[in-house]
């Protein structure tokens, strides 16, 4: 049986946020939505300063609080470990967002068409794109996924439903890697089947010390971090993303 997990090599991460960008383009997420987010951290005082980076996708927890609290079962956990949102069932109560200790949920506060930075209504653009919004619109997102044939978050970006990182389920099911993993210039992100002892990620995890975020909350995340340390009380964020949505 397959169980997908992501391994983040903090010894390599450059904090360049290419993964965030790849995610935004691949999943056509709207302004201010970061299914993948990369923290830039700082501790200590000059000259004994330490800086570090921490990518934060959805943790796809095995004991996912968001799945527990969803009143209508729109947030569900798959056999292969993916935690997804059936955006055709979601009622937009945003309870999952509150239950999640990682802050990975993003609600669609407005109409998708209003949320993509530029005026794609421009007639010359329309002529070239046939009215796709955004113009780099990915058709895979409109297809149901998995044995359940459910519309995983990401598709049409409903107004008023909850969405989050899907581990690029639409790519994974084609045998591809998530967009963030593929684009990472320094291969700091790894993805694969941790049930399969022979898989590269399993091997990598065996060979390296690793931690998971907020393990004390008992969420059993599927995202493992190699190298570095979990953010502590003295950790400061630098170069924060300011979102004007």
């Amino acid at each position, binding site marked *: 049986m397959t169980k997908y997990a992501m391994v983040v090599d903090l010894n390599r991460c450059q904090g360049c946020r290419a993964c965030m960008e790849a995610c935004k383009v691949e999943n056509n997420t709207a302004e201010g939505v970061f299914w993948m987010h990369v923290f830039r951290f700082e501790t200590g005082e000059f000259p004994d300063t330490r800086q570090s980076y921490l990518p934060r996708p959805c943790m796809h927890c095995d004991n996912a609080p968001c*799945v527990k609290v969803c009143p209508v*079962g729109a947030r*569900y956990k798959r056999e292969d470990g993916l935690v997804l949102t059936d955006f055709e069932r979601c009622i937009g109560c945003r309870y999952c967002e509150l239950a999640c200790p990682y802050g990975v949920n993003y609600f669609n506060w407005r109409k998708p068409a209003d949320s993509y930075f530029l005026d794609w209504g421009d007639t010359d653009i329309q002529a070239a794109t046939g009215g796709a919004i955004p113009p780099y619109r990915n058709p895979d997102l409109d297809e149901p996924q998995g044995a359940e044939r459910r519309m995983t978050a990401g598709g049409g970006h409903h107004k008023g439903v909850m969405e989050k990182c899907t581990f690029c389920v639409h790519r994974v099911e084609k045998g591809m890697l998530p967009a963030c993993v593929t684009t990472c210039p320094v291969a700091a992100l790894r993805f694969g089947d941790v049930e399969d002892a022979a898989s590269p990620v399993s091997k990598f995890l065996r060979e390296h010390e690793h931690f998971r975020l907020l393990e004390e909350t008992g969420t059993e995340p599927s995202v493992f971090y190699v190298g570095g340390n979990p953010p502590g009380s003295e950790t400061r964020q630098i170069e924060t993303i300011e979102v004007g949505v």
Partner: protein
Amino acid sequence: MRRWWTWGMVIAGGALMTISYFFLAAPWGEDTVANSDPRLEFAPLLFVIGVIVAFSAAVVYELMPDRTDE
């Protein structure tokens, strides 16, 4: 007669609540994938109906016209 109806509805309502809540709604337990769907769609509606039936018993109890003098 009146008693029959009243108790009948109370029990029926209670049963409906229990069954829909524990057996027809989304299953409990570890089977994470399955338990996002109710075993029976609209099971929660059944639960609510159960509530209504049970409490309606009181109405029936009071409103049911007397057949014969007691």
